[in-house]
Structures are given as structure tokens and as C-alpha cells.
């Protein structure tokens, strides 16, 4: 029984880390630009398809394929930022609807372009690991390691590099940052590039662990928003804690009860946490968000 318990925990942690990988890019964009970027899921999906073709079908080197996919998806992301979000002045409601429409369109176009067969990115690390009676495939372990590395990397970039500091400045107060000479447009574009690159990695691993298909981006998206809000907007440590917590809760309730009960428990818990602590674990007070909406 302890082996099953160990398995549940291991599953929970890996599930959480995979959600976090998708959420990282999203929380960055949400924190800096305060927009609900619904197309993030589609970035994950497009990157996965791109990896499928470049790495899976044409057998290009994995790292090179990843870089190319990240670049492709970042280009799409920056396109959205410049020609869709910026003209809308980052107004939360309009951007949300615009992104939603774009995500429907991209999904439909993908069904048409790629067809109905679910695909799979060939695994880079075949084989299984055993820990105290619990099983973990090497590819899951790799995904976890990469996620931790990415999170640490992102944290370092944000806190130790000049660009990171500029991003954080814009996140905290964009007007003051402008006064200091920081280009908001440049920062926004950079944030999108980073966000989409993170999405590309997340898409790659989702495609290896699960399946590559046009709907793959939307499923984790809701979970990611939950993570971001529970953890606190713009807070990376918050996203980690929330993601792990959510992964463990999902794993426990699905294994011990059923998928449906897990569904209910997840949302009940989300409500509870948001009621008790609306700004999330590590977030700051976002009441400015509502006053920012101008005529």
C-alpha cells in the first residue's frame, strides 16, 4: 500500500510540474501585461506540431528542432502582441475576446491542416525508473528536471539580468518604468518571446508524454489559470507552490476516489482558496487591476 502511496505522490508531483511548465509562460504574460492570453494554449499546440514534423518526421536534431519551433511560435506570439493586443491597448476584456476568437480560428485551422489522427512526438528518453516500488518513466523524469531547470532559469533571468529587471519594472509600474527610459514595447515583445519559448518546451514535452492534436492546448489552459490565480499573479514561486499542490490534489482524489470527485474537489478548493485569500499565496493586491480599465 505504501508503494501505491508513493506512486500517487510521484504522479502528483509530475502532473504538477507539467502544469507549471505550461503556466510559466502564461504567468509572465499575465503579470506584465495584465492580459488573459487565451492563445497560449494554441502556442503550446503549434510548437508540439512543429516538433512533430521537424523532429519526428524529418529527424532533425532534437535541440535544433526545439530552437526552431520556439522561434516559430515566438514569431506568432509577437505578431499577436503587435497587431492584436497592442492596438487594443491591452484592455483585459477586449484582449480576452480577441484571443478567444483567435484560438477558435487556430484550432479549426489546425483540424483542417493536420487532420484527425492523434500524433505523438517520439520519446528522447525511453525506459523506466523505479523508486521504492513506484514507477516513473524516464521521459516524465526528464520533463520534471527540465521544468525545474526552466523555473530556476526564469527566476534568475528575472532577478539577475538587466532585461529581467526591466521586465519586473514594467510589471510593477509601467509608467514609472517609462520615465526611467525603459521601452514598454520592447519589454512586451521580449515577454512574449520568453513566454512563447516556454510554451514551446511545454508543448514538446506534452507531445512526448501525451498526444499531439489540435485540442491539446486548451485542456491545460484552465488549470494554468487556476494555478496562476491561486499562486498569485506574476509570482513564480506562487505558481510553483500552486501547481504542485494542484497536481497532488488531482492525483490523490483521482486515484482514491474517481475522476468526477476530483473534478468537484478541485473546483471547490479553488473557490475556497480564492475566497479566503483572494490575492493568492504570494501575489500582491491587484485592486489596481479594476481601476486600470479606462474608458
Amino acid at each position, binding site marked *: 500500500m505504501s508503494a501505491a502511496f508513493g506512486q500517487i505522490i510521484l504522479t502528483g508531483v509530475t502532473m504538477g510540474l507539467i502544469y507549471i511548465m505550461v503556466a510559466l509562460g502564461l504567468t509572465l504574460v499575465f503579470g506584465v501585461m495584465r492580459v488573459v492570453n487565451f492563445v497560449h494554449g494554441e502556442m503550446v499546440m503549434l510548437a508540439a506540431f512543429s516538433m512533430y514534423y521537424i523532429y519526428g518526421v524529418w529527424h532533425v536534431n532534437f535541440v535544433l528542432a526545439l530552437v526552431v519551433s520556439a522561434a516559430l511560435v515566438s514569431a506568432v506570439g509577437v505578431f499577436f502582441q503587435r497587431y492584436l493586443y497592442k492596438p487594443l491597448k491591452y484592455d483585459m476584456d477586449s484582449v480576452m475576446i480577441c484571443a478567444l476568437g483567435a484560438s477558435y480560428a487556430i484550432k479549426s485551422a489546425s483540424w483542417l491542416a493536420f487532420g484527425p489522427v492523434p500524433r505523438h512526438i517520439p520519446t528522447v528518453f525511453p525506459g523506466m525508473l523505479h523508486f521504492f516500488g513506484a514507477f516513473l518513466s524516464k521521459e516524465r523524469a526528464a520533463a520534471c528536471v527540465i521544468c525545474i531547470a526552466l523555473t530556476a532559469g526564469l527566476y534568475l533571468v528575472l532577478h539577475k539580468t538587466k532585461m529581467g529587471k526591466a521586465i519586473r519594472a514594467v510589471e510593477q509600474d509601467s509608467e514609472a518604468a517609462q520615465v526611467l527610459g525603459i521601452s514598454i514595447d520592447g519589454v512586451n515583445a521580449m515577454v512574449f518571446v520568453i513566454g512563447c519559448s516556454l510554451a514551446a518546451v511545454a508543448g514538446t514535452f506534452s507531445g512526448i508524454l501525451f498526444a499531439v492534436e489540435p485540442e491539446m492546448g486548451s485542456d491545460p489552459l484552465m488549470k494554468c489559470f487556476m494555478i496562476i490565480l491561486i499562486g498569485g499573479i506574476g509570482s513564480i514561486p506562487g505558481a510553483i507552490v500552486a501547481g504542485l499542490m494542484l497536481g497532488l490534489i488531482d492525483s490523490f482524489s*483521482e*486515484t482514491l476516489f*474517481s*475522476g468526477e470527485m476530483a473534478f468537484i474537489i478541485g473546483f471547490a478548493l479553488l473557490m475556497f482558496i480564492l475566497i479566503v485569500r483572494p490575492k493568492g499565496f504570494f501575489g500582491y493586491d491587484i485592486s489596481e487591476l479594476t481601476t486600470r480599465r479606462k474608458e
Partner: protein
Amino acid sequence: MQRVLIGLASLLLLFSAVTGASWAAPKELVLGCNFILSGPAATLGIATQRGAEHAAEVINSTGFKVQGEQYVLKLEYFDSKYLPAEGMSNLEKMLNHGIRYIFTLSSGVSVPLVERTNMAKMLQLTDGSGADHLTSPKYPLSFRVTPNNETAYAVYPWLAKKYPQIKTIANINPTDEAGFTESETRVRCAKNLGMKSIANEMYKRGATDFYPVATKITALKPDMVDFGCTLGRDQALCGKALREVGYKGMFLVNYPDPGAFVEMAGRDAAEGAILSSAITEPQTPKQKELYEFYVKKFGSPVINKFYDSYDPIFMFVEAVKKANSLDPAQIAEALRTVRWDSVYGEMYVGMESLYGIKSCFCRPLPMGIIKNGKPMYLDTVAWPSSEVIAKLVRD
């Protein structure tokens, strides 16, 4: 406020434009297709569309005669998006176009329609489960065009005979109407054949991580895991997860997508999986021809749903020819007497003993097995007789 009212006035103009749109229809027999063409279940819908389209092409190469006049079959496609309300709107649109025959996919979308189609005297052909909510004497114009949960009545007796070492089964199904129907059917069949269903797991459709379910099932060590009506990607991911957490028993995959299953679950995980009602290696000339057509047009692998929607179109047209009429009620009566040489073998309308009226298309089931990463032909199961079915459904 006044601006709003002008706006409303312009809207009314728009409304009358919509009203004014005309939909002239030449000498065609129109079959309205209510498929799922977007959203997570689009795989099913697109594969079904391909099958139906090809069938229509073949039929229209010669056309057919009704009451001395030459007709072609026209398929009009509507996207139900797996939402009952959209399915209903599609039905209304079809009625508005004067369409009298509907081919609809998935019980979730089709069961809400059946009351209306029968009231409107439309012929409803459904590919979905729905049990007696869909096919019953109350709805004489409603047919199920491929066996869904009914396949269990053929497959389980075959399993019991061919693999007597199977004593315990674990059932996995998604939590929706089809899933519940399948699980009920299969658990009952197992019980009435001397096997035991030791786990009846329902997972939420859309879940990507199957480790929790797999862990639970593996802990119970069943001889066989029956995937029920999990589809496509979910089957593969679940199978993969089961093998990864250490499950060593057999798999039974229904509604299979053999190519995707092998690719996504991995060769080792898929080895030995039994594929229920799957055309793996084409055995007959008909199967070969269809297989080659699909591969040439869309590339391999073939999604099995493609075969499922092909023959029902022919059955329908045969019934039209036999009835020599466009009246849905007469076509329905004729349909009950049609015997068609389908890609699977002889296809006819039956299941009167179960549903009280001949309403479900019956046919042989080709069984496959995956060996060395390749789906291969295993056996053909004939459709069970009513005595066998009666034994399987008793409480």
C-alpha cells in the same frame, strides 16, 4: 437610447435578409449529416465524414432511380460541436431545407433529437449508443447504424471461448452517457459468462494523465483490461500508463484506432492488444479496395471509424430503391428488410429481441491483434443470435 433603437432597426433589416435567403435544391436526395467537426471529438467526426463522403461518391458514379426518376445523393454537413443545442439547431436548419433524412453522430447529441425527428417524420440514422433511449418501438424511424455497446454481446462470448484463462476484467470508460451504457453492458456480460468485473473505472473525458486510473487498476491485478468506449488518443495514453505502472495482463481495445494506438502507446505496450471490430489487414477484395483508397487519399494509418460510416449510406440508398419512394416511413420499413454485402460481411437490421423493434445494424466483427507493432488479423466473430443475447442481458 434612440441610437440603440436605430441599431435594432438595422438589425431587423439583417433579419429579413436572412429570411430572404433562398435554398433551391435540384433533383437530389439530401441526407443531412450532423457530425462533430470541431472540438475534442472532431477526430470521430472527420473520420465519419470521410467514410460517408466516399460512399456518396461511389453511389453517385451511377446514381439511382426512384419512381422512374434519376437521383444523386447529396450530403450536407453540419457541425454539432458535441453540443446538444447545436445539434438541435442543425436539425431545425435541416427541416427548414426540407431535408427528411438525418445521419447523426454520438449519442450525446443524437438522443435529444430522436423525439423530434420521429414527430417530424424524419428518418434518423445514428452512430452512437443511447440504448433504448434511441432505438425503441416508440421511435420507429430511428436506427443505429453500427453496433456500439452491442458489440459486447458478440465479443464477450468469443473472449470467453478463445481465452478461457481470463477470469477477472477491469472496465474503463469515460464519464458520459456512452460510457455508462458501455460499462453497464460489459459488466453484465462478464457476469453472465462466468467472468468477474473487478474494477469499473470511469475517467473524465479530456483527462490527459492516466496514471491515477492506471495505478488503481494495476493494484487489483485483473487478467484483462477492457477499454470500453474510450477512444483514440485516450486508449493509447491509458494503455501506455498501464504498462508504465507495471500492468502485465491483456488489453481489449474497442472502437480501435490501431495505428495511433501503436504509435502513441509504444510497441511494447501495445503488444498483444486485442482489437475489437477492427479491419487490420484487409482480408476481402472490398476491404482491400477501401483500404487502398483511404491510404492513397489521406495517408495511413486508417482510422477505423471511416469504415463504419461507409456501408450505412449504401444500406440507406438500397432501402430507398427497395421502397421506391422518398417517404421516410416507407424507407424505414424497407430498411428493415435490406441485406447488404458490406465491407465487414453481411449487414442487416436486427436486435428486435433486445429493443423490441428491428433497429440496429448487425454485422460480423473482424478481430485483430497487435503483434510486433503491427495490427494483424485474428478472427471474425459472427453476430450473436437472439438466444445468446437473451442469456447475456438477464439480470
